[in-house]
C-alpha cells in the first residue's frame, strides 16, 4: 500500500473518532447543565473547552447557542465537529479508490448534512448531536462490514484507537485534577456520571461495579478494563493488534523498535493496579502513557510512511 494512502486512512479514522468524541462530550455537557446550580457552570464549561483543545474561547459566553456554534459548527475552530468531519472527508477523498463505495457514500452524506444551511438544527442541538453520533457509528460499522480487514483497514484501526486512547487520557486527567482537587460538593456525583457517559461507559460501569460511584473504580474502569471498548487498556490493545497485523502484511523488517514500544505500553496497562497508580500520582502516570503513545505514532511514521528512501534503494 502507498505510504501516502496509509497516512490518509490513519487520519481519516482519527478525525472520525475525534468528531465522535467531541460530539459526545458536547452532548453530555448539555445534558449536565440542565440540572446544574448556577455556580457550577463555569467550571464545567472550562473543562469541556480544555478537553477539546478550545481554551482560547474561554472568555466567550457559554450559552447553548454559542457553545454549539463553536464546538460543533464553527469551521474556523480546527477542533470543532464540522472541521473534523471535513478533514475526514478530505482524507477519504484522497483515498477514494481504497475504501468501499458504501463507506465513502456514508462519509460524504455526513459531510453534506453538515454543510450549510443547517437552520433545521438551530433549536434542536441535542437532536443534531444524536444524529451525528448515529452517523458516525454507522460509518464505523460500514467500514468494518464492507472493507477487507487488510492493511488499509488496520491503519484505520490504528488511527481510531490512537485517537481514542488520547481522548480518554485527556478526559480522565482533566477530570480528576479538577474534581478531586476541590472540596467535596453535593453535585460531585453528577460530574462522575458525566465522565462515564463521555465514554459511553455509565451502563457498562454499573454492570461491573453497580451504581456505586467511587473515583478509584471509575479510574480503574476507564483506564484498566480490558473488555470495554472505550477504555484506555482496550484501545491500546487494539492499537497493538493493528500494528502486529500491519507488520505481518507488510513483512516489515524495520519494525522491531515499534513492536517493543507497543508491547511495553500494553504491558503497563495490563499489569498496573489502580491503587498504586493513584498513590503514585495519576497525572504522572497518564502523562507517561501519553508520551509513549506519541512515541508509537512517531515510530509508525518512521517505519511505514516517511522512511528514508536511501535505506530502501536497490544497490
Amino acid at each position, binding site marked *: 500500500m*502507498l505510504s501516502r494512502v496509509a497516512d490518509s486512512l490513519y487520519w481519516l479514522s482519527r478525525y472520525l473518532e475525534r468528531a465522535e468524541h467531541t460530539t459526545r462530550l458536547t452532548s453530555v455537557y448539555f445534558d449536565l447543565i440542565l440540572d446544574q446550580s448556577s455556580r457550577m457552570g463555569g467550571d464545567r464549561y472550562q473543562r469541556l473547552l480544555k478537553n477539546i483543545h478550545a481554551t482560547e474561547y474561554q472568555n466567550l459566553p457559554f450559552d447553548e447557542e454559542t457553545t454549539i456554534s463553536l464546538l460543533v459548527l464553527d469551521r474556523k475552530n480546527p477542533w470543532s465537529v464540522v472541521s473534523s468531519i471535513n478533514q475526514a472527508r478530505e482524507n477519504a477523498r484522497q483515498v477514494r479508490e481504497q475504501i468501499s463505495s458504501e463507506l465513502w457514500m456514508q462519509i460524504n452524506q455526513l459531510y453534506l448534512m453538515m454543510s450549510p444551511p443547517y437552520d433545521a438544527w438551530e433549536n434542536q442541538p441535542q437532536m443534531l448531536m444524536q444524529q451525528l453520533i448515529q452517523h458516525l457509528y454507522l460509518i464505523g460499522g460500514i467500514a468494518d462490514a464492507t472493507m477487507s480487514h487488510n492493511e488499509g483497514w488496520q491503519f484505520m484501526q490504528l488511527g481510531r484507537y490512537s485517537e481514542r486512547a488520547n481522548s480518554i487520557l485527556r478526559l480522565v486527567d482533566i477530570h480528576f485534577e479538577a474534581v478531586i482537587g476541590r472540596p467535596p460538593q453535593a453535585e460531585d456525583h453528577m460530574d462522575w456520571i458525566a465522565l462515564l457517559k463521555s465514554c459511553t461507559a455509565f451502563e457498562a460501569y454499573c454492570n461491573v461495579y453497580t451504581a456505586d460511584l467511587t473515583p478509584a473504580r471509575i479510574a480503574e474502569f476507564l483506564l484498566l478494563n480490558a473488555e470495554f471498548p472505550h477504555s484506555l487498556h482496550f484501545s491500546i490493545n487494539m492499537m497493538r493488534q493493528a500494528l502486529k497485523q500491519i507488520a505481518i502484511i507488510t513483512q516489515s523488517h524495520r519494525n522491531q523498535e515499534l513492536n517493543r514500544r507497543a508491547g511495553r505500553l500494553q504491558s503497563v496497562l495490563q499489569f498496573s493496579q489502580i491503587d498504586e497508580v493513584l498513590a503514585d500520582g495519576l497525572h504522572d502516570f497518564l502523562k507517561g502513557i501519553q508520551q509513549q503513545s506519541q512515541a508509537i505514532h512517531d515510530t509508525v511514521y518512521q517505519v511505514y510512511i516517511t522512511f528514508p*528512501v536511501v535505506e530502501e534503494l*536497490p544497490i
Partner: protein
Amino acid sequence: MAHIPLPPPFNHYKLEQQFYDEMFTPDATPRPPYAALYQRLLTMSAQDLDRYQQAADASFLHQGITFTVYGNEAGTEKIFPYDLLPRIITQAEWTIIETGLTQRIMALNLFLHDVYHEGKILAEGVVPVDLVFSCRHFRREMRGVDVPGGIYVSVVGSDLVRLEDGRFAVLEDNLRVPSGVSYMLANRQVMKRIFPNFFSGYGVQPTNQYGQNLLATLKALAPNQSADPVVVLLTPGVFNSAYYEHTFLARQMGIELVEGRDLLVHNNFVYMRTTRGLQRVDVIYRRLDDDFLDPLAFRHDSILGVSGLFNAYRAGNVSLANAIGTGVADDKALYAYVPKIIQYYLNEEPILPNIETYLLEDDAQRQHVLANLEHLVVKAVGESGGYGMLIGPHSTAVERAEFKERIEANPRNYIAQPTLSLSRAPCFIDGEVDARHVDLRPYILYGKEIKIVPGGLTRVALKRGSLVVNSSQGGGSKDTWVLYE
C-alpha cells in the same frame, strides 16, 4: 415555422428544421429506435419526471460524483448535470462511428510515429513542416524515441457532432488526457437504477467492460513484456477537476492511484513509496499534461511530476499512456490535415468527415474569416474545455474586435469553422421536455488492438440555444444507448 403540437410532456417541445433532431423526424414522428421510449414517456407526467430527476441528482451528489470548476472560489465542487432522457444510437450508425474512429486513430498514431522519426509526411509536403514544429505540444525531446508497440495514443476521446443531414462528423481529437469516461459509466449506472423499466427490453449494449479493457490496454504497453506489470494511475491530486474520475478508474482497475510525490526515479527506474518499502512501477496511466510530468525535462516549476521520469521513459524502463508529445496530433490547425493523413498512411478515404476548417496563417483564408467573424466560430488551437473560443453569431462587436486583434497578432494560434448546427435531443429541463444541442464523445482504447465501448458521453448544452457543451461552461450529459441489431 409551423409549430407541430405534441402531447405532454412534449407540449413545449420545439422542432426547428435547421437542426437534426435525435428523436423526431421533421414531421414530428418519433424515429424508430425512439418509438418505444416516446410511448413510455407519454404515460408520465412532468411531476413523475421531476421526481426521477431529483432521485438521479441525489444519487450523484451522495456518491460524490463531482467536478471542480476553476476560478470559482465558493462551492468549487459541483455535480455534473445529468439529463434523464437517454440518447439512442442504432447499431448501423455505431458501425460507422466505430470503423471511422478506428481508421482515424490508427492514422494519427502512424502520423505521430512518423513526425517523431523520419518525418516522411513532412518531407513530402503533405503536412507543412512549420505547422508541426510551431505546435506548442510538439516535443523535440521525443525525436527518435521508440515507444512500446509503436503506440502513442492508448486512450482517446474524440468529439463527434451530428450534422443537419444526420451524418456524424469529427469535431476534435483528444489525444492527450481526455476525460469524462467515468461520467459515461456513472450515467449508465444511475439510469439503470432510476429507470429499470425503461431499460429492460430495449436491447442496450453494455459499457461496463471499459475498466477491464483499459487495464488490458495499459498492460499491453508494459516494457520487457513483463507478465504481471505494475500499472498505476498518476493524478495531479485532489484539486484537479477530474479527480473523481481518477479515483473511479483506479478502483475499476484495482490499481494504485499515485501522485507525483509517491514516485521517485533511481537509476532510470521508477519506484513508488509503499509501506513495504519501494516498489517498481512498469506502466503509468498519467492524467497529467506533458508540461508537468518531469520538472527536469519540462516545466521546472512543476511540483506535480516526478524528477527523472522522462529519462526512465526514454530508457524504456517505464511506459506512459499516452506517450509524451501526442498533443501535436490534436492541434486544432493540424486537424484540417487529418483527412490527408488518413489517405497518406492508410490509402483509404476517411469514413467520418471533418468539419470545414479555415487556417488563419493563409492570407486568403484569414481575410475571408476576418470579414465574416459574425458567422464563424474561432478557436485557439492549443485550448480545450471550451475556453478561448469566439462563437460569431452569439458574440458582441467588442468581442469580435478583440479576436480580430488576437488573430492578426498570432494567426497560427487560431482556426475558424462555420457555426455548427449541432443536432438536438429532448432533455428534461425546468419541468418540461425541451430540445438542446448535443455532441458525442466515444472513448477509444488502443493496446493490442483498438477497442471502443459502444456508447460514449453525450454532452448537452443546457442553456437554450447554446452550442457549448463543456462541463466547465454549463454543459451536462446524458446516457448514450447503442442498441443491438
